[in-house]
């Protein structure tokens, strides 16, 4: 098993402010979305996480990321 995994990170709405829209990053295998959320400085008090998708499916923060996964993070948003 390789040590590192390649992950595509996508950010949306206010999460883009001062960060980025999309980036490819390398992480250690075993990394979870929660690790990345912490790394990005997304916290409960300011714009807490709304929706988390891995490869276009809703996932939990504890999911173990796999090689080639795309992680998308959204604050709480809505419309209609």
């Amino acid at each position, binding site marked *: 098993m390789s040590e590192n995994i390649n992950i595509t990170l996508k950010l949306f709405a206010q999460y883009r402010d001062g960060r980025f829209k999309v980036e490819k990053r390398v992480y250690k295998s075993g990394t979870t979305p929660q690790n990345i959320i912490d790394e990005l400085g997304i916290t409960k008090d300011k714009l807490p996480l*709304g929706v988390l998708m891995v490869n276009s*499916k809703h996932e939990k923060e504890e999911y173990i990321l796999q090689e080639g996964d795309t992680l998308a993070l959204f*604050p709480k948003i*809505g419309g209609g």
Partner: protein
Amino acid sequence: MADKIYRVNMKELSFKIEDVPNHWMGLGGRGLTSTIVAAEVDPECHPLGPNNKMVFAPGLLSGTSAANSGRNSLGAKSPLTGGIKESNVGGTIAGIMAKLGVKALIIEGIPEDNSTFYHIHVSRDNVEIVQVPELVGKDNYFVLDSMEKKYSKKVAVMTIGRPGEMKMLVSNISVRDPKGKLRSHGRGGLGAVMGSKKIKCITVDAQNYKEVSYEDSEKFKAASKIFTKALQNNPISGEGLPAFGTNVLVNIVNEAGGLPSRNFRTGNSENAEAICGETMAENIKERGGSTTHGCHSGCVIQCSQTYNDKDGNYLSSGFEYEMIWAFGANLGINDLDLIAKIDALMDDLGLDAIEMGVCLGLAVDASILKFGDGKEAYRLIKDEVAKGTPMGRILGSGTGNLGKLYGLVRVPVVKNQSIPAYEPRAIKGQGITYVTTPMGADHTAGYAVATNILNSGGFVDPLKKDGQVELSRNLQIASAAIDSTGMCIFVAFPALDDPACLPALIDMLNARFGISLTGDDVTNLGKTILKTERAFNLKAGLTSADDRIPEFMKYEALPPHNVKWDFTNEEIDEFWNF
């Protein structure tokens, strides 16, 4: 003074002001329009004939100081679906009608002399019906201007453009908003019903009204404060919607694989980034304009906006997700400014953005235009639809009819009404709403996207069937009740997640009218409305066989998740088991 029913007869060109019957007293908005349509309109009548009626009713809390309470309902039999329709809208009309004491405005009959159009002006205890030959063949902003000149800048206006005059099924009824821009009773071809009655515009006097009264104004104020706070503290209604508008949905729905693209061939669009809410907000910031604008004065959410072109000149306002999706993803126009130009043109003409947009998406399959050709889409609307040429008539008849005329199979409609911006195969709860709501494919009737995609009110997996019927049923019941209060549908977000929100809403109703509704009463109201509407549809000849998704969605798998529509008829019909 007690509220009254204002009844206008277009055959006699006369009016009556009637007491409100006891059993209508506790109703408003959709609850009242659907009740009156069911009681007074023959379900078998031709929607454009003399026996259809238009019923306008402000919500129960419209005209009060309650936040976001300014929505007005319009009910009639729809010429598009052949069933009952309720369509609600912001703008200034609901508040003004409520303050004038107009519980409902009912318009019946058709003039014998159909050579011209009329203007109806409603004021305290009076209705004037006058011929307006000078407005015939004009569009909405022209009508707005001439009414503002005739009355005041504040007068409430509802109007139809040329497509409405021509009784096209894509036509809507436009309503003046506080800044003199337009909102619309969008769906179901109700502009055609107004056209059939030869009514060009309706105005409501904004000079001589009284403020609405409260049975217990202290209690009302207290509840209203809690309610406003709930809207402001909620991350969606308090932050997301004001910052990005409804168009923030493009990216999330696209990411989830549920953004219908290329006439519902895929759930992703290559144009998403070019047309998304984030891009729109950046443009607004760069060019001047405003991300926040309310469609009525008491709105504290302000999801609407003013959108300018590169030179800072006004292009459009109320530039919404549905519009941007229909033209950007489904029809493939990757230029947000051009979509805004089309939006402004359609506002002026009074066209339903969803019906027209989906119809043009299907027109690509009919080889009428090319995918992504925004210039041609603009031309088709301006030079064909607006002028009523034969091609304009074809496109103006809506998606279902276009499909029939060109022998197309992939026709995205339910009850002949175009499916909006969420793929039913990939967002299955929303699909259940499309097939079961008495309105025809309508996203606001039970917004399951909230729980399928946005994690509001919990989470139900959008790709699985489990729990969707129940989710859609609960949302439809709640929406029918909310649509009766005059509240904008976006109060649903705090209502789903903040336990203080709904009780405060009910407290306001109780304080306004001196009654003692409970949560159960409100749920029962929602249930009764749905059942009344469904009963009308059954008598109109619609059956369970109309509660179905277009067949191609059952055998064509939708990328990226490669999902089909897989509900059995029994599973769908279980919806009505309440």
